[in-house]
């Protein structure tokens, strides 16, 4: 026995391992929903799908009220809101300056960005499930109100819808990473298709490039019956330009940027 009594509890040894990517993704998913703004964005996305399906019940011919007819139209407005989710998940860290805390806990910024991308992709996939659920509810309602309510679904639509929504949310995230500013990223993202169509309408020389670069044109076949090889090619080119380039350039910018 030593003469010295036990000292005050010494400061504990730290854990040697860092947080796994799964843990970080879980944290980022939580961040999507733990503020009032975030929660309302998610609720709005669900509501928009529900409203569209409700409208369908009233406006679409009874005989055409199939599961597919309820499923597809709701994907477009949801696909418009998902990029906003992608943008906010990235830019929120900078506009609210929480990057200071986030990067203090995870100084390898690329891990944070990867976790954020994983979180918004999961959210996009979940939105497809919500669309399916809402379409199913619509089909049941259609049966009850005298519509056809047929349970027909073109099964290829499911992976296509997933690609559609994941591409949308990642494009938003890419714009957010590149611009690191919420209003700038949202306005730029939403204006882009409009600018394309205006320019393509005015300038003849832009019409052919627009077929390859305007994502609102290249992504549309995803939600119609069948995709041709040419359509996949054009989709790939447009996504390389509007998804891959902003993501990579944005990642470089985020890794280098000074946090203050």
């Amino acid at each position: 026995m030593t003469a010295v009594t036990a000292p005050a509890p010494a400061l504990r040894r730290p854990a040697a391992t860092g947080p796994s990517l799964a843990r970080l993704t879980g944290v980022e998913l939580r961040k999507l929903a733990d503020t009032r703004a975030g929660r309302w964005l998610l609720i709005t996305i669900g509501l928009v799908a529900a409203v569209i399906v409700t409208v369908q019940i009233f406006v679409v011919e009874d005989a055409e009220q199939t599961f597919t007819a309820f499923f597809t139209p709701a994907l477009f407005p949801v696909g418009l809101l998902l990029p906003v989710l992608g943008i906010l998940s990235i830019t929120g860290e900078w506009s609210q300056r929480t990057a200071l805390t986030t990067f203090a806990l995870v100084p390898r910024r690329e891990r944070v960005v990867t976790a954020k991308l994983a979180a918004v992709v999961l959210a996009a996939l979940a939105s497809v499930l919500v669309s399916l659920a809402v379409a199913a509810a619509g089909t049941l309602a259609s049966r009850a109100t005298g519509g056809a309510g047929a349970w027909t679904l073109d099964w290829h639509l499911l992976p296509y819808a997933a690609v559609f929504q994941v591409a949308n949310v990642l494009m938003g995230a890419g714009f957010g990473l590149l611009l690191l500013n919420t209003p700038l990223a949202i306005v730029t993202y939403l204006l882009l298709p409009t600018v394309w169509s205006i320019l393509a309408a005015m300038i003849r020389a832009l019409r052919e490039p627009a077929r390859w670069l305007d994502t609102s044109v290249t992504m549309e076949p995803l939600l119609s019956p069948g995709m041709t090889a040419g359509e996949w090619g054009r989709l790939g080119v447009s996504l390389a330009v509007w998804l891959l380039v902003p993501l990579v350039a944005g990642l470089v910018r985020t890794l280098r940027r000074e946090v203050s």
Partner: protein
Amino acid sequence: MIEVHHLTKRYGPHTAVEDVSFRCEPGTVTGFLGPNGAGKSTTMRMICGMTTPSAGGATVAGRPYRELPNPGREIGVLLDASAQHAGRTGREALTLAARTMGVARGQVATKLDLVGLNETAARRRVGAYSLGMRQRLGLALALLGDPRVLILDEPANGLDPEGIFWMRGLLRDFADRGGTVLLSSHLLREVEAVADRLVVIGGGRVVAQGGKDELLAGAGTLVRARDQHALRLTLDRAGLPATAGTDGGYVVRAEPEAVGQAAADAGLVLTELRPAGSGGLEQLFLTLTAGASTKEAVR
């Protein structure tokens, strides 16, 4: 343990931090002092990997910050109490950090309690917090992973006198249990009560550093005479560098004995003669950083 080697940060032609080096040992509180714009925050951000230095480097617990696998468990960082999402509750902000670090959920309530944020405060959104409450939340966040090192940028800002007293006790206790603390301030009085060591920075450079007692001892002699004017002339004649203090006396960069001898030779009646102590350090702080803060005002 924090080690800073020749840290330099340039923004274009402007040098914010130039060749700053110091060490913070376990069991000590180091006060990082300087006027606003002296480079304190930039230096701390470089230590924490938020800003890439132009030259030099820093290690915490033996490694560069960015190479620490789970820094929250080794270093508690509070760089800016206002940098919290206004829409999250205080509890949620801590919960996110606890999940990231892999800290038990019970620690969130424990640390909130430790910094004096009660149940009601924890449920409120951070946007509704006062600056003092944000500082307490930031401190809870820094302490959440039970680290051995604390890096705090102006943690006393916005705290009331009771809060400042409480924080001193907390930091002192942390250091006494073997922890390392680096805290910055632009107020000497604020840190001298708790710091063991001081690093004084002005215009991006370290202008003085050392043990607090050592710096206080080297702060000169305070002298006061019935005839202040004659005293001034006597000091000048004896070649003793003197500056007028804030309250009428002179702070002389010399030993009390030399000052007393000069006064006796001139036949002056002294009313006060003692080591300048903290008053002298303040004087030193002011003179050392005066040029820098003037530059800051103009910039």
